[in-house]
């Protein structure tokens, strides 16, 4: 069950915005939607939400066609938007009521969420008086106030300071614990790695990589070695025909093809009794994989 996209495509005139993508999200958690600008992430999200008609394919939630009425979803768009002249509380009530909540339930939930997100003091202010970060938190509240089953967050952390990022992260972790299905698009790969069990990478509307994040990373060989020593080891590295990517105060980042060559270097260092403070074989980061897949 859950969310299923099968062979979904969308053209805008002669431009293929989304080309035959398929996604299956069959258990609660966070699904990462990655891609460069214009890769088709927002169009995919809009098709899932039914605000843009797909040309071909099928989108279902628990086996049923996705419609506003049939799916209880929440959406935080990439473009931040609030009613500038309207009081924060009034707009939160408005959206909660449109999502079918009673005024009383909405009021209670606003109080609870505004406390968690630390925006209580702004509730009676027009939204235009709030900082961008606080406006974003208000908009985040509108996307989850009605306790949705499916939450779609398009770039939820962009523009937030570290303190607010942490607050938002904790709420997302809570949502996962509550068994929510979350689709998150983000440019910060570290965030995706932190939250997402599965990902899809889009490039020019096409799927270039898809699957379980751990499996994807395991399928890649180690490609980087981090070594910190108390003395220079440049000669030993070049003896093994390895390339130094970076070296700051004997903290080396070395490009490797396999783990055996890393072990050889370790043996050499031990034999020569060089003091090692760090020795770490690294697999490619999501950032590396992303650049490899979508980099021109």
């Amino acid at each position, binding site marked *: 069950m859950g969310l299923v996209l099968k062979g979904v495509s969308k053209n805008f005139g002669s431009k293929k915005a989304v080309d035959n993508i398929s996604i299956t999200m069959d258990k609660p958690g966070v699904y990462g939607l990655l891609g460069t600008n214009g890769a088709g992430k927002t169009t995919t999200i*809009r098709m899932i*939400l039914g*605000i*843009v008609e797909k040309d071909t394919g099928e989108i279902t939630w628990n086996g049923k066609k996705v419609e*506003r009425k049939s799916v209880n*979803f929440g*959406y935080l*768009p990439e*473009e*931040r*938007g*609030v*009613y*500038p*002249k*309207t009081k924060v509380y*009034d707009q939160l009530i*408005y*959206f909660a*009521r*449109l*999502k*079918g909540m009673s005024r009383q339930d909405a009021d209670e939930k606003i109080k609870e969420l505004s406390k968690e997100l630390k925006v209580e003091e702004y509730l009676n202010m027009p939204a235009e008086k709030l900082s961008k970060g606080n406006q974003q938190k208000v*908009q985040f509240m*509108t*996307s989850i106030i009605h306790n949705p089953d499916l939450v779609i967050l398009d770039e939820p952390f962009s523009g937030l300071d570290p303190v607010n990022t942490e607050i938002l992260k904790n709420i997302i972790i809570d949502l996962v614990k509550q068994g929510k299905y979350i689709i998150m698009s983000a440019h910060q790969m570290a965030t995706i790695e932190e939250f997402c069990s599965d990902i899809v990478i889009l490039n020019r509307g096409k799927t270039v990589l898809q699957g379980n994040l751990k499996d994807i990373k395991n399928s890649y060989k180690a490609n980087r070695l981090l070594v910190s020593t108390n003395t220079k080891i440049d000669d030993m590295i070049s003896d093994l025909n390895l390339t130094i990517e970076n070296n700051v105060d004997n903290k080396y980042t070395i490009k490797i093809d396999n783990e055996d060559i890393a072990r050889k270097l370790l043996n050499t260092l031990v034999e020569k009794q060089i003091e090692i403070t760090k020795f770490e074989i690294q697999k490619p980061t999501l950032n590396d994989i992303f650049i490899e897949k979508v980099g021109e």
Partner: protein
Amino acid sequence: MNDLKVVIGFTIKDMVQRKSFIISTVIILLFIILGFNIPNIMNAISGEENSNSKEKILVVDTNNIYEGTLDELNSLDLGYEFEVVTDNIEFNEIKQKIENGEIESSIIIEKNDSNLKIRYIVESMTSYTQIPEDLSNALNSAYSSLQISKLGLTQEQLNSLNPNIEFTMEQTEEEEVKGNVIIIMLLSLVLFYAIYFCAYQVSSSITTEKTSRIIETLVTSTSPTNIVVGKTIGIGLVGLAQLCIIVLTALICAKSFIEPEILNSVLDMSMITPSLGIITIAYFILGYFTYAMLYALTGSTVSKPEDIQSANTPVAFVAIIGFYLSYFTMMNPTSNLNVFASIFPISSPFCMPFRVMMGIAEPSEIIISFIVLILTIIVITKLTIKIYSNAILNYGGKIKIREFLHK
């Protein structure tokens, strides 16, 4: 249905809480109250304690040329109070009385050989100051009557000299136009502005939602139909309430501050009936809906706030054509063109209520006009919602309406 109510409620609350709305309404009401009080204010400034008191004119007939017949001037209801004296009063004495405010002006009657000479003395003279025509006629007539009476004519001969001529006016057309056309045209102008500016608010509100990017959250919360129709109804209700307050204030002010004779000479209050009120409100609602939907259509195609003026220009043109078609044909209300204007949907809201007011609208014309207007609204609403749904999330370059239809 619940979503529609929520959108309507939010729109109303959002509009009436705006400072600009409150301030503009208060300013309009103050202008109305002030406008109707201009005569009173002018009287207060000129220091008149009682606006009903008549101007006093001192008539000096030193040589008793009129032989006492001038006392009858007061019975002619010329709007003046005459004090007739036969004493010899010097110019300086008259000047003193005018300066003291005892009299407004004075008439000195003198005889020069066989000619009658009348001097009209006022405090100050401008190029516009003239001897009041009815006053000079009355003096002429009184002198003629005096001289004729000396001829010893019989009553019949006297009657034939002063025939009682009765003037009446009739028309060849069967329909009779009631009321002052100029005033009705002015009211048509008021209705046009009310409809136009309320409808314009819809465009402005939709563009604000689009350019502030709130629209993405909104279209995932409810349907485009609920947004467009709810917003239109909400703004329309506020506009209607505002219009009713303005009209009621104007009517109360007219009744309270304007002399009934003056008011009736301008506007026959008996023409303002409950059925006229209902028809006017119905045309306001339908006219507003027509233009609001057109504005919703153009408002949804705008990506940047600065483009709103140019996007709305075509609708403004349509509205102005509709208004002038109604306005100019009203000068000849029984013409076929005015009948057409009262049925054609872009002009009927500004035209039909006043044909009804003038008592020349046939019931069949009213029914046809309503049907045409309602059908037009249905077509425009469907078209607008289709284009709105496709255009509202487009932030790219300018796209033609046709492309939005086929998206």
